[in-house]
């Protein structure tokens, strides 16, 4: 019986907590669209309900094909207006955001502070690699973590992803970041965390049996703490480096894949 009693939502429903610097831009666009769309929907429903109430069987139908120039012009104008008011902001803002924020990799690449991470996705885990002090990937001082990504706060974090088997999708809802990891190509995504804490990294693309638990933890540390962590981890891996462990030697030259 208790099983059948549906518990009410614990924290309410809504966008997950936004911990990134730019996530609010997506949220704002979603919410703005909701207002317009909601309004349209209400008008539409009200119209139909009113028509049913007022123009029922007792009302005499008007013989009207709606083909007068005026009638057609009104229709076209309303459709045009809806397009400009509802679709317009979506389109323009998407362009702007692609250019200035989510697609602006050039700025992030140019920022000396930004942290670069390479991710290999495979069934069913995320393996992350940091270049270490030498700034080069696939060298002994690289930090390699398993299902555990540690990043500093207030710093752009730039990812390059590959997959070794099937398509996965690197998804951090709290950072409003998502990109597919596709075998045979390198994809990129970046975000900047504005607060510390632990967040879920999920896989958004169906990738088989354990897709539902292909998750990793994103830990955001204050920058100094992160630097300490990185130095320590790098020293550890340099110490444990095993040149014969071919499995561990993945990673690629970062600059090769810098696309505009």
């Amino acid at each position, binding site marked *: 019986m208790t099983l059948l009693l549906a518990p009410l939502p614990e924290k309410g429903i809504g966008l997950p907590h936004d911990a990134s610097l730019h996530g609010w831009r997506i949220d704002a666009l979603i919410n703005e669209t909701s207002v317009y769309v909601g309004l349209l929907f209400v008008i539409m429903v009200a119209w139909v309900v009113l028509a049913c109430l007022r123009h029922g069987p007792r009302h005499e139908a008007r013989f009207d094909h709606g083909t007068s120039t005026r009638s057609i012009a009104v229709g076209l104008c309303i459709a045009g207006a809806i397009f400009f008011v509802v679709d317009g902001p979506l389109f323009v803002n998407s362009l702007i955001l692609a250019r200035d924020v989510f697609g602006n990799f050039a700025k992030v690449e140019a920022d000396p502070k930004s942290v670069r991470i390479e991710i290999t996705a495979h069934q069913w885990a995320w393996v992350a690699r940091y270049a270490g002090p030498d700034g080069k990937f696939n060298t002994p001082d690289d930090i390699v973590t398993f299902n555990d990504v540690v990043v500093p706060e207030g710093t752009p974090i730039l990812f390059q992803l590959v997959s070794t088997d099937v398509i996965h999708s690197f998804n951090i809802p709290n950072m409003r970041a998502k990109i597919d990891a596709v075998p*045979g*190509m390198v994809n990129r995504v970046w975000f900047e965390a504005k607060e510390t804490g632990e967040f879920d990294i999920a896989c958004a693309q169906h990738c088989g049996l354990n897709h539902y638990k292909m998750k990793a933890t994103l830990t955001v540390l204050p920058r100094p703490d992160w630097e300490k962590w990185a130095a320590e981890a790098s020293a550890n891996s340099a110490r444990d480096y095993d040149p014969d462990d071919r499995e561990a030697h993945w990673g690629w030259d970062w600059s090769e894949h810098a*696309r505009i």
Partner: protein
Amino acid sequence: MEEAARVSQRKRSAITFLVLLALTILEVAVSQIAGHHRAVVTALVGLAIVQGIVQIIYFMHLRWESRALRLYVLVPLAFPVIYALVLIADGIWRRLP
């Protein structure tokens, strides 16, 4: 009248075939040119397009009853072109690492 139309149609298909054959021979010839890979490919693609158009006109002349049918053929013809462009653009963008 019927007979005349038939003869002219036969002539047309014969000509189409000859044109296609000539183009093919030209293509084989072009493909044998050594070096200049890019130019050769461009020439071949150009020839292929001409060939395609010849084909279409040939098919188009067969029996088009109405304007609707003609539109039905012409509009979709634009799609493969668009898709080809999209796919090749995307293919180049996704070059292997």
